């Protein structure tokens, strides 16, 4: 069947058998490609151009853009707003939902709204405590937690009903994700926690920043023993450190980030610390890629987003593959499939 209408980048892709969403990220992962996602630093403004500018540096380099939901408990443009703007022009977005700011009524409504706008991927997070951000006097909601949130989204998608049991006439077609942190105690429980997230509905997970490969390897050994890497796509979080000073600050001020001393020493020993930070990031990605059971990386280059393209290029993880960018007059994979279907039907 050939297309009659011109290619509309914001339209969901045709649904493939076995897929739960109509987005590009799920396709890339299910094909077994090494996926790359990146986190967009949300603007403190109401100007859509700010979002487009920040997304432009990722274009053609990543398979999904994460829109954070008040990360670090600071106010920014909402993940819903960012996803609306980006999905409108064809970007694959990962809409983050944090349990800190919304109760179950708001969250379920947002999932329907997001999915209706073309968001195919949702990331279920607990969220940082309000104390971490610029509004420590806010009321923390935490009506759900990350795992009951995963379960809620899966119920909505697979059973076409809200938590209350009330019917959803058209369920959201979504790819559901969670977060993992192999670098925080209790270390021996962390793989089981991933198992629990999978049991609750996680199809992919993105991890906290990884700067400690041996620790990640120990975690992944256990994950493979449990067979979890076959039930869920695991994307490891990485990001360049701007300087040794920044690394120290992150280590003591951002919850859940573990940066071992040798990394900081390596930064300190360099003449150009920013460049060395990028080099470390590339080295880490190349080591992560070699670990069995890892499906991709999640780039969190906070305030250094312009480095993402270089890092992805220099690390060679795409192996010549080019993720979607504007101006592709059709989605390459869809076009190929249509040709194949025509061949098969004749």
């Amino acid at each position: 069947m050939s297309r009659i209408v011109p290619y509309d980048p914001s339209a969901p892709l045709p649904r493939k058998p076995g897929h739960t969403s109509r987005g590009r990220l799920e396709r890339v992962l299910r094909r077994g490609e090494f996926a790359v996602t990146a986190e967009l630093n949300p603007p403190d403004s109401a100007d859509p151009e700010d979002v487009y500018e920040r997304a432009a540096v990722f274009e053609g380099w990543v398979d999904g853009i994460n829109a954070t939901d008040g990360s670090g408990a600071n106010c920014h443009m909402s993940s819903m707003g960012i996803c609306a703007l980006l999905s409108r022009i064809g970007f694959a977005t990962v809409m983050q939902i944090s349990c800190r700011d919304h109760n179950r009524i708001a969250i379920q409504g947002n999932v329907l709204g997001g999915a209706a706008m073309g968001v195919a991927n949702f990331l279920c997070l607990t969220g940082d405590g309000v104390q971490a951000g610029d509004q420590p006097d806010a009321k923390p909601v935490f009506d759900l937690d990350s795992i009951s949130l995963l379960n809620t989204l899966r119920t909505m998608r697979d059973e076409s009903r809200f938590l209350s049991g009330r019917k959803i006439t058209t369920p959201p077609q979504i790819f559901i994700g969670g977060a993992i942190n192999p670098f925080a105690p209790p270390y021996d429980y962390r793989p089981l926690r991933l198992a629990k997230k999978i049991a609750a509905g996680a199809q992919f997970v993105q991890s906290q920043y990884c700067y400690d490969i041996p620790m990640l390897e120990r975690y992944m050994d256990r994950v493979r023993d449990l067979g979890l890497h076959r039930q869920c796509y695991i994307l490891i979080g990485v990001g360049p450190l701007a300087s040794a000073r920044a690394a120290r600050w992150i280590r003591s001020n951002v919850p859940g980030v573990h940066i071992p001393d040798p990394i900081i020493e390596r930064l300190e020993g360099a003449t150009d610390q920013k460049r060395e930070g990028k080099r470390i990031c590339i080295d880490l990605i190349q080591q992560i890629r070699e670990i069995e059971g890892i499906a991709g990386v999640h780039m969190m280059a906070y305030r250094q987003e312009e480095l993402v393209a270089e890092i992805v290029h220099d690390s060679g993880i795409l192996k010549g593959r080019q993720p979607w960018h504007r101006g592709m007059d059709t989605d390459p994979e869809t076009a190929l499939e249509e040709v194949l279907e025509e061949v098969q039907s004749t």
Partner: protein
Amino acid sequence: MPRITAYEPAGAGPVRRLRSPFTIRQWSVRHARFLERLYTFFADILLGLHPLWRALGYGRVERPVKSVEQVVKGFLFDCRMCGQCVLSDTGMSCPMNCPKGLRNGPCGGVRANGNCEVEPDMPCVWVEAWSGSRQMAGGDHIQNVQPPLRQSLRGTSSWLRATAERAAREEAARAGGADAP
């Protein structure tokens, strides 16, 4: 720009800290196996008294039982009377003491020393829960996916609810067994 005071415990000043040390709560986690046995024993007694509760009316005994429960569990676990007790699934560490109220496991912010992200001088209730669960016979229940809290049950007795539910289940099973040939 306001000074960002990262991770100073909000609503938990030094006075509250002094008032609620974690000693007893931590003792309970260390003795999770014993408390699990004690609870099983005690739950059977409550179930045995089900005819009495029913005769008096569950609604009428709610208040006195709740008061006892609040004192006992408040002392042992710093219980917050969520009304849907999951202590036997969480290593005898009450998840409602987590500043985020997480009922399904630790968040990613646990500090390297095992303390809470939000309250730096408090041991993470989920690190405790994991260690407590390792001693318990039903320790693997920590993997049960807990549904979201039902806010409407806050402040009610979960002992009585668990007893009523168990009695109903057993009656249903008996009725089902009687129907079978």
